[in-house]
């Protein structure tokens, strides 16, 4: 920064001065910083994409296998008639077959928890098998039936047998109490020997000792053991039945009112467990008792458990039970809706684009059409749903939940995509082709139909496939016209029958509380993404294969 005299020969600025060097260095550092931000931004985006896929695959891959148990069933001709094989009491048959594995289980309540290991759809699976193979009646057959959702999840190690019941700070509180020598085990139950002041103020004049607030007394009493920290959580160490216990003590000797008594109060189950076993875990509440684990383990030991590929995911209809739920209804619904969408949007889109690009005069009306197309492309999809609901369902009285209406709404949404793609493809056809055709006496319609459209077709097809791929993933408009009906069978498939679509199925499964639906939802998403990838690859392939360089 020596004198910057302008006009002198040579730069007056001393570039080699240390200050100047530092400045240049700083400027390059700023440049590198910007580059770093760019790499960080791209890295973040890629990482998010990775996390998205990894978490979907992690949650979803389990649903592609189903944990099944092999039943060996004697198809007793006495119980199943040849004429009407579908009408036998399959529930009994299946349960008897399963019960046969556990001869020593008796008693209704034990049997009921035993049957909970099997999926409740097992009866139908066996029934369908027999109806499909009536010749097997009278034979011994082995049939795989799914286990119920908790055991499926257990076998795939998605849920544990025991879960943490107590957080570390709760355990610390418990330890503090233990060190004060308060806790002990008596008659197989953990108790806390606590001094409690039977506060006369908490004994109402009316009702007497029977109506006193023993809970509050116990809380006050406990508080003295935790002088250093005020936490509400110590209250849960004592069982909820402690108040009854204290009441019985006071009722037995009403003279203790106004004095401090030492009582042994029962511990809450989690803390009792911790005291007696040293374990801070409890049985996963999805399971009824520990003996269920033993039964399941014995099945596994006998080699009766298998995990075949879940073909049911593609061939079953929807179900309330995750181990039985499949995508057949959703796939057929989506297929029909896409078919309608294609049948409507493809010709209309091409006709519009050809008209605007090849025939339309430049005037107000065509300007209006163009503005409309551009704006429709940006209208939120839920608004199209409102249109479908108000116009198609309410005004025209079309059926609710039907693929026909879904396809029509999707067609309106897909139209702008197809029109824009078609116009781009038409524009790419060089004018010389049109001039050549006109020059040999073709009419403008013949030019468009015979020369321009065939040449533009690869681009049109690519745009159409991409538009249909978008339509396949569209959810909100289908929700509004009710294409999220619960359809537990795939018998009634039709354009005007209530149906489900793939994305709405994902939405409804994602809303279901059963643990198994998390895997099912992720698997359904992987199926949907699979279809989208295939459609996009097809579009890329078509473009590569048919692309013409001018």
């Amino acid at each position, binding site marked *: 920064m020596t004198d910057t005299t302008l006009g002198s020969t040579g730069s007056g600025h001393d570039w080699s001065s240390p200050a100047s060097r530092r400045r240049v260095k700083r400027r390059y550092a700023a440049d590198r910083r910007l580059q770093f931000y760019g790499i960080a931004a791209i890295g973040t985006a890629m990482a998010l994409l990775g996390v998205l896929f990894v978490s979907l695959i992690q949650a979803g891959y389990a649903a592609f296998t189903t944990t099944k148990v092999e039943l060996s069933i004697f198809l007793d001709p006495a119980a199943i008639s040849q004429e009407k094989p579908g009408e036998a009491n399959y529930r009994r048959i299946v349960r008897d077959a399963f019960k046969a594995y556990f001869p020593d289980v008796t008693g209704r309540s034990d049997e009921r928890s035993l049957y909970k290991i099997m999926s409740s759809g097992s009866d139908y699976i066996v029934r369908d098998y027999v109806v499909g193979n009536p010749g097997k009646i009278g034979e011994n057959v082995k049939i795989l039936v799914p286990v119920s959702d908790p055991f499926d999840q257990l076998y795939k190690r998605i849920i544990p047998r025991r879960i943490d019941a107590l957080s570390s700070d709760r355990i610390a509180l418990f330890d503090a109490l233990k060190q004060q020598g308060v806790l002990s085990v008596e008659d197989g139950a953990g108790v806390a020997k606590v001094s409690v002041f039977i506060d006369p103020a908490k004994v109402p004049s009316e009702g007497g000792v029977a109506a006193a607030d023993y809970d509050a007394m116990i809380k006050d009493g406990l508080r003295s053991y935790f002088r250093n920290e005020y936490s509400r959580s110590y209250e849960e160490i004592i069982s909820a039945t402690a108040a009854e216990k204290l009441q019985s003590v006071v009722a037995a000797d009403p003279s203790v009112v106004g004095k401090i008594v030492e009582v042994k109060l029962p511990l809450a189950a989690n803390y009792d467990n911790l005291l007696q076993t040293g374990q801070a875990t409890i049985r996963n509440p999805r399971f009824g008792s520990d003996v269920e684990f033993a039964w399941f383990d014995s099945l596994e030991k006998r080699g009766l458990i298998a995990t075949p590929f879940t073909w049911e995911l593609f061939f079953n209809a929807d179900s309330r039970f995750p181990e039985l739920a499949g995508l057949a209804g959703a796939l057929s619904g989506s297929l029909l809706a896409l078919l309608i969408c294609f049948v409507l949007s493809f010709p209309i889109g091409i006709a519009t684009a050809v008209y605007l690009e090849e025939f339309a005069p430049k005037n107000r009306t065509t300007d209006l059409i163009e503005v409309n197309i551009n704006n429709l492309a*940006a*209208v*939120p999809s839920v608004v199209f749903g409102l*249109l479908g609901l108000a116009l198609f369902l309410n005004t025209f009285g079309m059926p609710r939940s039907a693929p026909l209406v879904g396809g029509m709404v999707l067609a309106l949404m897909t139209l702008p995509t197809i029109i824009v793609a078609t116009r781009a493809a038409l524009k790419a056809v060089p004018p010389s082709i049109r001039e050549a055709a006109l020059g040999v006496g073709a*009419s403008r319609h013949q030019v468009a139909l015979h020369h321009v459209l065939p040449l533009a077709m690869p681009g049109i097809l690519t745009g159409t496939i991409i538009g249909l791929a978008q339509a396949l993933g569209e*959810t909100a408009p289908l929700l509004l016209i009710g294409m999220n009906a619960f359809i537990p069978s795939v018998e009634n498939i039709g354009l005007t029958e209530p149906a489900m679509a793939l994305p709405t199925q994902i939405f409804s499964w*994602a809303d279901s509380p059963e643990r198994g639906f998390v895997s099912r939802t992720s698997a359904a998403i992987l199926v949907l993404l699979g279809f989208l990838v295939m459609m996009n690859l097809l579009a890329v392939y078509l473009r590569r294969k048919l692309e013409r360089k001018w």
Partner: protein
Amino acid sequence: MLSYLLLALLVLTTVAYYAGLSRARAFATASGHAAQHSLSGYHGAFVAAWASLPSFLLVILWLLFQGSVVDQLLISSLPVERIKDLDSGQLNLLVSEIKSIAKGNVFGEPDAVVLAAAERYNSWNAIASWAMLASALGLAVVALVVARSYVAPRFRARNEVERIASVLMILCSLIAILTTVGIVGSLLYETLRFFSMVSPLEFFFGLNWEPQIAMRADQVTAGGAFGAIPVYVGTLLIALIAMLVATPIGLYSAIYLTEYASEGMRAVVKPLLEILAGIPTVVYGFFAVLTVAPAMRDLGAALGFSIAPNSALAAGGVMGIMLIPFISSLSDDALNAVPQSLRDGSLGLGATKGETIRNVLLPAALPGIMGGILLAVSRAIGETMIVVMAAGIIAALTLNPFEPVTTVTVQIVTLLIGDSEFDNPKTLAAFALGLVLFLATLALNVLALSIVRRYREQYD
């Protein structure tokens, strides 16, 4: 029935084509090709078009209006004493009951009037279907015969066919306008009905949104349940969070990709970013519920404060991920549109790349980038599935990103999901919200597109 009719029409069309074709061929061979104006195929197409299009149009119109006409007939045929005390909702219920009985689903012991009405309904529908079949086929045959009589050597069949094609193309082009008219019309109609029940003042300025409770008439009049301000605030909060995530990541990615990255890196990264754009929003919604919300809750717990499982942060954050490719590709376009000469000018003065980007390229591309950001905002407020799955339903008036808030689209979906009657304010409120959403996104889009267009013109 309908499929047979369509099949019959298809057969008739084919017959018509050959009828025209054979007649044209006959005189083509008789008089030689020179005398004939159009190729024989055009004569066939002319007859086929007249045979199929009018009756096809008739079928569509018939199907659109048969339902409402039969409904009107049904209602007017019901005995007056049966319906005089019913309000419109109860009447609708009665009609649906009759229809369901007509389909064969009989529940309980319907009275004789209803049973008779159901029978009438069935027979009318049958009559209507047969009438449609007869008139459509009749029209097709008449049109065929008349059109065929036109076929003559000097008849300009090609011009006629091309005129029909032009009319069809124009009709198709009008669908874009009709869709817009349909959207605006239906939203406006239902919104006006809504405003006849609930004051617009309350809707636009009220602070209390509890539409689910307001199903009872006394509470509608009591007021306060349809104040949509909390819904708007929630929408804007989530959109703001989404933009705070998407804008820096998208913009810096675009800067790096256009100005620094090698050809090979661009070829890999750009398609990967496009994958983010192609993922359906229901997938993002599930991702928010499955991964992002629990992660945020754990993070919050680790830092010692509580984040709701359906916090605005989780929903907005995931929406931001969805918008990254949107921002980056539009910024990419804007940066690429800046002429090379400006880059040269700045580099030629000894500026580093970073200085050139910051001082010359970004200011020059700013209108394009702003247009892209506005388009992304419009997407964010119109986005539905992510917020339906990951945001809240209760309309809380808060700006705290750790709390659940609700959005316009969430309310539309929750108000309309399941069976909906069109005569209570709860359902109609969804249309009022839809109209607000439509107008807001329309305004944003028009603004954004005009900014982008003016900016493009600047460098063309």
